[in-house]
């Protein structure tokens, strides 16, 4: 019970801070928008081709944008020595991890909600498969990125080149999740097949890495 309470208060604090500053949100939004624009220079697709490639484009934009936010999420705590305070407090370390992950999940999902219509406009998209499946892919896919991202961002704060380290750790581990997100999105957009396999893979990935993250977070928090 107290784990949930600590997680909830961490989440509330992060949301309030973000609501007041909107730092991470604005940075992510602008960054993802830039990626979308730069991609449009590399291809000039018609609607048919766009459906095939936009799954990849959108997820790359979200992946890069979320690394920007994830790097920030622990940097703030380092400045205020919050991590040291947390270490000496009796609260469980993984409640902090859970709260942070949910916070980041909400931020990235909000960005996606803003950007998805922009992608639709830029690339003239229309889904052929059932659209509700896209919602499922986005929720599961974003959690996969964020749960590992929050963990590895905490790990990266312990290294010499903090900001550089996060993508180096996060991207290789996230490859199966990315593959699943991109393929599921493309399948729903083109309506060619059933995304069942990819959605269940994402669900398995989410469960496995949420467990591993919760188990190992204390080790990272108390590594010094």
């Amino acid at each position, binding site marked *: 019970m107290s784990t949930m309470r600590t997680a909830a208060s961490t989440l509330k604090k992060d949301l309030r801070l973000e609501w007041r500053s909107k730092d991470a949100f604005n940075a992510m939004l602008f960054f993802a928008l830039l990626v979308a624009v730069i991609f449009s220079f590399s291809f000039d697709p018609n609607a048919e081709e766009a459906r095939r490639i936009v799954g990849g484009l959108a997820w790359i934009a979200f992946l890069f944008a979320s690394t920007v936010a994830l790097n920030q999420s622990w940097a703030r705590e380092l400045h205020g020595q919050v991590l040291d305070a947390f270490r000496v407090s009796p609260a469980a370390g993984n409640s902090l991890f859970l709260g942070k992950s949910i916070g980041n999940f909400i931020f990235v999902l909000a960005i996606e909600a803003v950007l998805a219509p922009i992608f639709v406009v830029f690339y003239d998209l229309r889904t052929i498969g059932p659209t509700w499946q896209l919602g499922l892919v986005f929720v599961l896919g974003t959690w996969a990125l964020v749960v*590992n991202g929050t963990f590895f961002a905490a790990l990266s704060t312990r290294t010499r080149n903090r900001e550089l380290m996060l993508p180096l750790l996060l991207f290789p581990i996230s490859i199966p999740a990315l593959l699943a997100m991109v393929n599921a999105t493309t399948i729903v957009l083109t309506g060619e097949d059933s995304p069942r396999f990819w959605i269940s893979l994402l669900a398995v990935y989410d469960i496995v890495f949420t467990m591993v993250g919760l188990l190992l977070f204390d*080790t990272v928090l108390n590594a010094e």
Partner: protein
Amino acid sequence: MKPLFILYALFTLVLLSWGLHQALDVAPTEQTMGDIQRIFYYHVPSAWVSFLCFFVNFLASIWYLASKNMRADAIAVSTAEVGVVFCSIVLVTGPLWAKPVWGIWWTWDARLTSTFIMWLIYISYLLLRRFSTADEQTPKLAAALAIFGFVDVPIVYMSIRWWRTQHPSPVIGGGESSGLDPRMLHVLLWNFLAFAAYGLLVVWRRYQLERGRQQLNILYRTQGAA
């Protein structure tokens, strides 16, 4: 160097020479691929040794987190480094074999891609060890990442297998239609033994080096405090 180590090194040398003789002279020439197929006796054993190394790395990481025993960490570093070297050998010999046989250097097929991603994961593990700020925390962070990485490998394999497949299905234990000439299997097993012995030799030396480094660090720290 201890006599036991030198003795073992000599033994490995003999095994490797025997393996070379087996692969080049004894093994029958493959019908369609010809002599090129002999790279098989290096490609496959290297892959097995690298998987073995990563598996030991995973076990050693759990052992370290459970016991905080520095020996476990030394094993984890050594096996990860040697595993990456053998995995690199696989990734180099693969294209060398693929070009004449498939006509292409590389294809994004299931096994090639998953081996490549596994290689990337363990490179990131070595990078983390290198960039970690303090010696006391490195083993813990590395062990956590090692567990993430090892858990990821089967998921990577599953996902990419669903994506596409071109690599031949496993020749050994891969169903009825696949089969290996018993003489070829014999040579393969000799070479696996030789490469495993060689891998162990390098891991052993690297382990000693790491233990030495750890002890030196402790000395520095106590001297610094005094």
